[in-house]
């Protein structure tokens, strides 16, 4: 075995330039795929983290009959005395923050234009509101007892040509099925770096939102962030009997569907790109078989079995694979480490169904590296099959008499 590898190593060394280029081709392929994988993983991870931070939390507690597709404000569908419940949940050791939120549907009217928005009543002081507080780009943040101000996303303000201090008309649905309107002053603009969210969400202090939606002392959900994401199921189980509890996984089902879909496409890409690198390896090995026709003849004449001759070529391709993959993993990791640090600007894609940030940070997982390494290795070995078979089926006598 070791002897085979020794021979393979020497054979590769005989034409260093060719060996180097073959490895380089494989390395480019691996690096490209690794970068793509880390890009997709980063996109998905970013989207999930944004969703947890902004939209779903780790857990949501709701009234048993609440249906999130309808944004109902009927009192039966809401949580009564949410402050007490939130305080009780927040007292649990695993919980980082628990805060009541009220969801309503609204229309912002400004000048000639109007646009549909989601109106969210939040507790401005809660730790769970940090993304909005920290994301303030101009104007002032909300205060708990503000009765005439709201917080608007930077993207939406840009589209409606509004600035802090401007007055808008806000139409909001109410618990009795009607619509109410009131004018509000824009206190400030926030940005979460997720244009799809910023252009469709407006914040009011919870008490004001309850007043305009006629849902006093009620909230749609208790929004819960945990200290450790892995404890989600345990906490959900502890809260479950009394209320409808949803975990971030249930609340982001679309995202995981999208991820599966993206991964399926990734595997097709893996196969195609590695298939193309395989052709480079096949050609290299085929050439090396024909250069060494005489040698193979000698080896066979000396009693080397076809199987061992094949094994020699497999050894050669596995050495190529190891070298190429190693270079590729290093190249790919460097590239994705750079983008992980500085991000990749994709701008606004009009995606509102899932929260894709305007800047994507790659995320390289060990899992991707291992999967890709194994796949690249197997495909490169398979690439040796044809050249090895060509070598093994040579007739020793004829091979000995061949030109070189």
């Amino acid at each position, binding site marked *: 075995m070791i002897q085979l590898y020794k021979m393979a190593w020497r054979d590769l060394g005989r034409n260093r330039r060719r060996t180097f280029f073959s490895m380089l081709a494989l390395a480019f392929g691996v690096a490209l795929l690794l970068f793509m994988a880390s890009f997709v993983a980063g996109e998905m991870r970013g989207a999930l983290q944004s969703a947890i931070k902004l939209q779903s939390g780790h857990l949501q507690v709701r009234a048993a009959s609440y249906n999130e597709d309808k944004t109902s404000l009927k009192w039966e569908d809401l949580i009564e005395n949410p402050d007490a419940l939130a305080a009780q949940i927040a007292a649990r050791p695993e919980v980082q923050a628990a805060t009541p939120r009220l969801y309503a*549907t609204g229309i912002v009217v400004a000048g000639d234009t109007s646009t549909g928005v989601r109106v969210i009543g939040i507790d401005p002081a809660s730790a769970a509101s940090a993304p909005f507080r920290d994301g303030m780009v101009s104007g002032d943040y909300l205060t708990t007892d503000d009765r005439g101000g709201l917080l608007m996303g930077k993207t939406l303000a840009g589209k409606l040509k509004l600035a802090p201090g401007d007055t808008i*008309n806000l139409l909001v*649905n109410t*618990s009795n099925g009607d619509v109410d309107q009131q004018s509000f002053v824009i206190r400030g603009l926030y940005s979460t770096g997720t244009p799809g969210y910023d252009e469709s969400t407006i914040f009011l202090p919870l008490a004001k939102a309850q007043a305009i939606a006629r849902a006093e002392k009620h909230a749609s959900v208790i929004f819960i962030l945990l200290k450790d994401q892995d404890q989600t199921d345990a906490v959900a189980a502890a809260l479950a009997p009394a209320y409808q509890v949803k975990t971030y996984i249930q609340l982001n089902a679309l995202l995981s569907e999208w991820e599966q879909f993206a991964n399926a496409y990734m595997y097709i890409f893996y196969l195609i790109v590695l298939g193309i690198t395989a052709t*480079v390896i096949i050609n290299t090995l085929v050439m090396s078989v024909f250069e060494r026709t005489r040698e193979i003849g000698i080896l066979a004449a000396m009693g080397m079995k076809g199987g061992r001759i094949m094994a020699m070529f497999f050894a050669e391709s596995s050495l190529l694979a190891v070298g190429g993959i190693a270079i590729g993993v290093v190249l790919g990791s460097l590239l994705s480490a750079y983008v992980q640090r500085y991000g990749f600007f994709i701008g606004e894609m009009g995606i*509102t169904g899932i929260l894709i940030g305007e800047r994507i940070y790659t995320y390289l997982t060990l899992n991707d590296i291992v999967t890709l390494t194994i796949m690249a290795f197997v495909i490169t070995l398979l690439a040796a099959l044809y050249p090895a078979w060509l070598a093994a089926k040579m007739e020793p006598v004829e091979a000995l008499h061949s030109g070189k």
Partner: protein
Amino acid sequence: MRLYLRLAWRNLWRHRRRTVIVAVAIGGTLALMMWYDGLVSGFNEAIYGNAIRVLGGNIQIHAAGYGAEVEQLPLLPLANDQALVQAAQAQPQVQAAARRINTGGMATTREGAFGVTIVGVEPDQELPVSLVAQKVSAGRYLAADDQDMVYIGHGLATAMGVGIGDRFTLAGRDTHQQMRSRTMTVVGIYDLGMPDIEKRNIYITLSEAQSLYGLEGQVTEIAISLKQVGEEPAVMNALRPSLAGAEIVSWQTSFPELEQALATKGGAMNVFSVIMMVIVGIGILNLLLMAIYERTREIGILGALGLKPHQISILFVLEGVLMGVVGVAVGVALGLLINGVLGQVGLDYSQFSNITSYMALISGRVYPTWGVEKLPQRTLTVLVITTLAALYPACEAAQREPAEALHYV
């Protein structure tokens, strides 16, 4: 030159196996690109095709300034709407020209609230051309003299839990920024098989929209339906003189986010294809380097016969280019095959219909086109990279000393 071509072509096929493998690699790369291009234009066709049939009209005319705020559906009245309708109807390619009011609103019941787009329509004009008007699944379409009647989608009816004869509150705003809400009765329900579109668009009569939203006798849009897709530019040009400042657009320019998304993805795909071609290029480089060693003696003979070094290098560059050409041929064949099959079968994207507003227009399957839209560019990329890959071996070949090369065994 023809002699070089002949020589290069012969050299190319001296090692059939190698050439075929390289051609397959080039072909595979090109086929992948064609598949992607086909999918993108399939997407475009599905979205724009449905936009015309569902949202109505190949061409829209709006007041000046509307386009900049198109997502917010501004209530900007068109100044000379009657004259424009007549001008449009005078065009032979035009099937119908319908006046409309589009505005954002909210449909609410005690069960919940839904943001909607309210479209005020002239039922008589819309009925022959609008798919929405034809796909009645319960009740009936609007009639010109309906009062407080609303025509909604199956998706919205299900979500709100309302049926024919049920009532809900429809809130909107008028031109003075004041809220206008009215209790409406569901007169009909349409079913397009596109739940997200059905949830979003609801229809009332134009006269009702005019009185509700403070636009007496005015409209915000003229939607022009053509007899055939593809005649948009001609009709748009014919209508330009009568516009008097109004904006005219076709659907191709109506989804700015779609353009942006496609541009970003397309850019990434271009980089991707170049890297893949570089990998293939390395294969070609390797192959030609080998060929030089094999043909050392030949090169010596050519040199001895009086071929200049640069002439020898032309021979090798040509060989690389020809390899690219063969690869392109293989790729086109493979690409057409893949897209031909997928064009029949289609790809299912329906589960992602609510990710973006334009995705909602995809009614189930997307059928890729042949993917030849960008073929010239793709071919050029392949040829440039194969040529570059051949340059280094070609220089190497040219540097051989004829006398030494001749003595090489």
